[in-house]
């Protein structure tokens, strides 16, 4: 005997959770597309943050071994780590690297090194006056450090899925004040759309994520039953 209500609930729950994963896909694409001024020109050299959960999961999957290049900083394993402390040390590391690079480029600009400097006049001024600071967290605001450039990219985030009745929705937001000017353009600057293209390009992937999750739930709940699944976005 199949409990259809429980099955439907399981399918719906899986779909909602897949929708959340889909939002993360869109967030990643939007971040990749978000314009970052090239006056700093060093964004691609940054190593992406890995959180403690990611590293522990990787370590567990490999039986305790993990490559050096897969971690940003050396950690005294297997000492128990405080997640917050480790994460902020990673953040500080990234911030220090960015600051060091920006300062180096500023020094090159001042020295008038031959060839095309990474910073232009405006970039140099913004690094010097700290106008381009991206203040991301409370700790940064307290003065522990600040990263330079990349604020629009840094603030894009996928929210958690919300449900109203039998409808689920998820938002990927860019709360930066000037995000709309970048997305839609102004009289002075042409548009650099990043959120809408990310959503459009991810549509197929999100649909297949949700469909797979629903199929998986229906298989678990009713092994011999075939359910036709239609996903609309």
């Amino acid at each position: 005997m199949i409990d259809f209500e429980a099955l439907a609930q399981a399918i719906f729950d899986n779909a909602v959770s897949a929708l959340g994963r889909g939002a993360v896909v869109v967030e990643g694409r939007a971040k990749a597309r978000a314009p970052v001024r090239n006056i700093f020109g060093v964004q691609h050299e940054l190593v992406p943050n890995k959180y403690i959960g990611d590293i522990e999961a990787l370590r567990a999957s490999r039986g305790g071994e993990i490559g050096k290049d897969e971690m940003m900083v050396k950690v005294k394993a297997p000492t128990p780590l405080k997640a917050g402390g480790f994460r902020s040390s990673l953040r500080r590391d990234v911030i220090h690297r960015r600051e060091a690079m920006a300062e180096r480029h500023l020094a090159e600009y001042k020295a008038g090194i031959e060839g095309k400097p990474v910073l232009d006049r405006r970039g140099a001024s913004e690094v010097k006056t700290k106008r381009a600071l991206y203040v991301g967290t409370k700790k940064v605001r307290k003065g522990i450090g600040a990263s330079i450039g990349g604020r629009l990219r840094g603030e894009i985030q996928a929210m958690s899925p919300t449900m109203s009745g039998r409808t689920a929705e998820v938002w990927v937001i860019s709360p930066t004040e000037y995000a709309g000017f970048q997305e839609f353009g102004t009289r002075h600057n042409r548009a650099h759309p990043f959120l809408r293209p990310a959503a459009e390009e991810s549509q197929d992937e999100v649909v297949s994520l949700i469909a797979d999750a629903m199929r998986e739930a229906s298989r678990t709940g009713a092994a011999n039953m075939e359910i036709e699944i239609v996903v609309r976005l």
Partner: protein
Amino acid sequence: MAGFTLDALIKKPVLTSAPVKRALVQKLRASPSLVAAIAGGIHEGIAPRKVRYPFVTYQLVSAVYHRQWGGVILETIFDVVVYAVNPVDANNIDALITTALDEAVLVMDEQDSMLCRRVADLPTGPDTDSQGKRIYQVGGSYSTWAHQTL
């Protein structure tokens, strides 16, 4: 002995968003009332600084390819925006653009226009230009589908 020509094996070039863009502008220019209303013309991306108001800009937002057996569908989204010193003018011209583009059949070489439809209004507000004039920015997003047989 069965023969075949090499031409049959040569892949056709896949469509890009350029013909769609061209067809979109052609469609706008084909509307006499719209052309008469926009003194500053139609520009891609951004208009030069000294262009007269009102004017129209268009910008490609996204172009996604859906490949299928025997063909490819290019799904594009364009923003078409009116800049005017008067909000009434801006809204009237936007309405003319909608009349010209909504449910329009775009004419493209080697491609079939499947759909051209206004899908959203842009949430843009008044702005100030370099001379301190208040500028009204009104527009919408248009979704187009074009099909090409390969």
